């Protein structure tokens, strides 16, 4: 029994039906973790992209190294690092937040590249016009650059969001009770892993198929409803 739901292992079908509510509770955790992680990645990635364009060589170079390091090391090890090392320095976060932070850090390396590509595609005249109108650098990014790159970078960002959703099961290793963790716990207690793990796989498949279809539609709609770019 878990979360007040008892399982019925009579047949695979009844078993699946009886544990579905538990798995769905896990799904909400999975989605929340992905949402929190992606929000962090979106903000941090933009910060990295801006720092990389800094006029100070030391700042841009350091940022490039940090981004490269984040991108080239495994999420799982970064997750362990945050989970075990942060408390040693007095930062004790709930496992869920640690997980979201790890996801966000890893993906900020990817999103910063997407932002960078988008920013580089903004014509130089736009920056010069903003300078001539005496906008600050912050205002230029916020009012001129970011609004112009949003339609351009949405598809790439969407792909990374889908990728992140698929990586959330890793958080189960630091005791976050997502779909994967719950399916494993059910498996441990019933000695029957096939059904719960298959269900989790299927739910991921459905999720990604829906997201891909949504992204596909978005790409078709964007040029019409989006901002005229030329």
């Amino acid at each position, binding site marked *: 029994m878990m979360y007040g739901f008892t399982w019925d292992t009579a047949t695979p079908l009844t078993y699946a039906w009886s544990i579905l509510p538990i798995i769905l509770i896990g799904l909400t955790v999975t989605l929340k973790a992905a949402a929190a992680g992606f929000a962090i990645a979106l903000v941090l990635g933009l910060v990295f992209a801006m720092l990389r364009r800094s006029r100070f060589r030391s700042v841009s170079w350091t940022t490039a190294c940090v981004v490269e*390091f984040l991108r080239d090391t495994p999420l799982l090890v970064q997750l362990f690092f945050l989970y075990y090392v942060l408390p*040693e320095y007095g930062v004790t976060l709930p496992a869920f937040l640690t997980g979201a932070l790890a996801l966000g850090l890893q993906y900020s390396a990817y999103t910063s590249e997407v932002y960078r590509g988008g920013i580089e595609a903004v014509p130089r005249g736009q920056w010069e016009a903003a300078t001539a109108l005496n906008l600050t650098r912050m205002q230029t990014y916020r009012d001129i650059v970011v609004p112009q790159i949003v339609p351009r970078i949405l598809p790439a960002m969407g792909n990374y969001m889908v990728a992140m959703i698929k990586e959330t099961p890793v958080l189960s290793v630091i005791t976050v009770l997502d779909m994967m963790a719950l399916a494993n716990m059910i498996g441990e207690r019933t000695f029957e892993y*096939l059904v719960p793990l298959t269900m989790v*796989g299927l739910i991921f498949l459905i999720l990604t198929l829906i997201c891909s279809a949504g992204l596909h539609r978005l790409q078709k709609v964007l040029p019409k409803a989006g901002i005229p770019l030329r």
Partner: protein
Amino acid sequence: MQWVSYLPSLAQGALVTAWITLAAIAIGALLAFVAGIARVEGGRIVSTLALCYTELFRGTSLLVQLFWFYYALPLIGISFEPVATGILVLALHVGAYGSEIVRGALASVSVQQVEAARALNFGRWHTLVHVTLPQALIEMLPAFGNLAIETLKLSSLVSLISIADLTFRAQSIRNLTLDSAGVYTLTLVGYFAMSLVLMMVMRLIERLARRGAAFPRAAHS
């Protein structure tokens, strides 16, 4: 200098990581070509099968696949060694993502090339092997380089099915010494170094592939 004592064990783990990664990339690349070519050149049934494989392994989470192969399959009588399971699952993952790269690169070869081959009465297979694939191969290399690094990173997940790779060793040492900062920093640096080596190798392959005068775009890889 406590961390020096971790090095031998971590190095052994790194070897396992390297072996699993390289094996998965090699088998995965093969799968990628088979599935990618099947999607472009195959008849309806073959290309649909390839599409199902790609979507299935791209659409479900790698960790779920790993646990499924490790915990669930033995229950219906199919079981492998942990290392074989790890390599197989990673290879299937590489194959699924790689097939998209192969498909995209084949599609990027201009129609004129295919038409020229047809005008010379080349067969389909001949066109593929001697006209389209050689041109597409160069286009695929950067994407395969990224996929290789992705695979190295994802190989850390095999530690969760009790394979003594770099991450697994790091966990064991941490549990023993409780020196989290030292162990994980070393581990991260280890993965980073391996990524850099992998990246350099891929760049080298790309440079060699582009060396021929046939691809004048070599200048800006």
